[in-house]
């Protein structure tokens, strides 16, 4: 299989947490602006939900590519500790996949208050 250059990139590995960060800033900024300027909790919650769906979709896409890059096979040793290009690529894939998981949890956690809290107070 041919692997493009981005599969050796550290930036690629941290793409999912960057999505988390963008989601967090968007949700916080949007809520602050809408609550302060318009006192519109409905709009704040709707925007949060929308941003969350977009973020989760992006993380799922990134996670899927990381999974492919990890190239998981159940019976192989998965230590990624040998000095080969494959081990390095699979290691970056594994780390990216795990980070996608944590980022997805982070996005869901951050979105939960919008389900339960119905006011701007």
């Amino acid at each position, binding site marked *: 299989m041919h692997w493009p250059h981005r599969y*050796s990139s550290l930036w690629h590995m941290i793409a999912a*947490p960057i999505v988390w*960060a963008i989601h967090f800033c968007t949700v916080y900024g949007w809520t602050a602006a809408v*609550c302060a300027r318009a006192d519109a909790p409905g709009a704040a919650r709707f925007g949060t939900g929308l941003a969350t769906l977009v973020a989760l979709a992006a993380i799922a896409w990134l996670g899927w590519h990381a999974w492919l890059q990890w190239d998981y096979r159940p019976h192989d040793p998965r230590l990624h*500790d040998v000095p080969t290009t494959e081990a*390095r690529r699979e290691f970056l894939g594994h*780390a990216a996949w*795990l*980070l996608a998981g944590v980022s997805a949890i*982070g996005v869901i956690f951050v979105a939960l208050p919008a389900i339960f809290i119905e006011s701007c107070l």
Partner: protein
Amino acid sequence: MTADSRLDAPPLSTADLDDRQPGGVWPPTPAMLAEPTDPHLAAAQAERLNAAWALPRGWRYITAVNNAEVGKWYALAAFGFMLAAGVLALLIRVQLAVPDNDFLSADRFNQFFTMHGSAMMFLFAVPMFEAISILLLPAFLGTRDMPFPRLSAYGFWCFLIGGFFVLGSLLFDAAPSSGWFMYPPLAIEAEGVGSDIWLLGLSFIEVASIAAAVELIVGVIKCRPPGMRINLMPLYAWYVLVVGGMILFAFPPLIAGDFLFELQRSMDWPFFDPERGGDPLLWQHLFWIFGHPEVYIIFLPSIAIAAMVVPTAAGRPIVGYSWIVLSAVGTGFLSFGLWVHHMFTTGLPSLSLGFFSAASQAVVIPTGVQIFAFIATLMVGRVRVILPTLWIAGAVAVFTAGGLTGVMVALAPFDWQVHDTYFIVAHLHYTLFGGMIFPVIGGIYYFYPFITKKKMSERLGRWSFWLTFAGFNICFLPMHLTGLLGMPRRVWTYPGDLGWDWLNLISTVGAFVLASGILIFAWDLIRPKRHQPLTERNPWNAGTLEWAHEVPGQAWSPRSIPYITSRYPLWDQDRIVQRMDAGRFYLPDAPEGHRETIVTSAVDAIPQVAARVTGPAWCTLVAAAFTGGAFILPTFKMYVPAVLCGIFAIASVIWWLWTATARIPEREMRDVGLSLRLPTYVSGSKAPGWWAVFVTMLGDATAFASLVFGVFFYWTARPDFPPPGMPHADPGLTAAAAALLAATWGATRIARSVHRAGRVRAARALLAAAPLMSLAGAAALVGAVWLPGLEPSSHVYPAMMWALVIWTTAHVLCGTIMLAYCLARSLAGRMLPRFDADLWNTTLFWHFLGVTCVVTAAMIGLVPRVM
């Protein structure tokens, strides 16, 4: 072999389109590694190498820049400041031991708790990370030194000057007294110079922290030994990379906050004054955007020490390497989403509080993962209870307790109950002792044989541990209860009969037990060990490269830079230590008497350059002294001497760069050993200097973004921003400024290309025109806010516009100096089309600056009119 593990990887930028490419054999074959070296040749090489890396003697010793020396000074200075801050804590505890005590006056008590927190954070915890990293990272990576040794030395001297200045204020009864987070309006109204000492002194030290972050990030990315791919890097290096990145995004908001705060203190610009449109909450936001990641900036490198000790104690590789990387990176990110949990009681919308509460819960996941990985490693290994393991075990126990109370206070309703009580004091000391003090002391016991080639005492170490551990818990465990019983933080004294008396007395007793444990450690650390035998080379039988050190120590660090194929080379790689000693690997010689190191590619560590490294110098000390003057003198309103100091500081830095950086080498290519030939000069993204500019400017961009955040913050927080009827910036001048500065940016970029193509005269013409355009642009920018009469002390809106303009103008002046520097280098024959690193770095600076200028123009010219 795949394309990305070859020497001649496809070029990624025009800087790579060059005939000076690495050549020869890569990777080295086992037969080449097994070939013996000629002992006579090796002896001659060792002599030359020793001469190149020798420490300066006598009183010139203070000009040394070797990482081992600077790291030791740095660590000892930070430890000294820690002991001083610890004494303050003991005095605080004496005052609080009994009700209605008058051992300290209220004002002195305020100074003491403010300086206790500030010194522990800014003079101990963060600098200690930098010190230990400077001291150990090159050894972990089997390399000779950090990429910019003089920058480390400069950072250290800045830290030392700033530390003495800030802490020394206590002796003159002039120390800051408004708490370590300096909340306005209290800190703004505070009389005397205390607040200014805090703002300027600690900003100065933050500069040193950012310098260290740049150094460490570039060290990890570009100075790994050949073959040490990113999946083989020691875990410590992963943590350093993450923490370096966090410093870049956490410290700049505080620098931006300090900038606004000092403008208000000295010029009465009302950023935090609600009567003139300001808002004290902006400071809280900027402070805690720094302050919460700061906790993890302290915690992660200390837990990284545990990640180095645990595999040695277990006698096997770490379990879950990728999981620990996930944990470090994940914690690094999530820790930026927590800052408002310090502000739960400020009346923000509960929806917003919910976001931060949720993120505060989520960060527990990656933090927990690494603890489980350590426990798993210990479970599957065969554990030897060496002394460092004891301290690491204490760390895990104490930190876990602090983490659990952390989950409690992350819940907003619970926090409303205990906010600003001793419960918080207990929580933060559990996290910081468990997350920092215990692992760091464990790490010092572990690395002491590496650092000094002697061992510390096993018996004193156990005494120290048990006294510290017991004393800590006696002191801080009762504070949970004291807090739940309602005792607020930062009170000078309290009446009896509220149920707090005996709890406080127990805490005070515990504090002294704790102090006795730390004192035993301090004695063991510095007691003379002249008659003690030298340590064996690898006393703990560890697997990582630092234990290939030579006993007695040598200034060159490794005799030759190894080729790495394992995460634990000392366990897995055949006769690696003998081969390193014999000079079998890379750079075993210094034929021209220069200090050199190998620069490798960022991910796969393929050798790219044999780069020169700077040696001992006075200019770092001079630059640090004048930089200190520029920060310290404004505290006492001595603005003219401060400006002069600033000019001298810039002059000494220019002298330093002119004489020691981007030097044109004698030979374009160099044989580095094992039949590998590397270029000796490189510009663009292969060069460590280019990376340093990139990393610095990321931090700078964050500070600028914080100012932009300020504008939008006022817009959401205040109904009268911008106030109706207030004049706006002049549109014509703003547009002219944007056009001129964008033109400078373009001219710089074009100059780089035409210069590389050999059209030196055209490049010089552009480099002569660009500074004129940038100065004209800066003048237009200032005129845009000056001419319409924006009066900064009248309201926060004009003040904020002025702050943006001042920030950008200062940067444009800096960019102008860099352009003039390139022109001068070209005219002096020190910058040629084949040797153009200066111009590449200046262009990169202008990429960032160009964006800053355009955004500033939009923020003053367009955005307020839309608002």
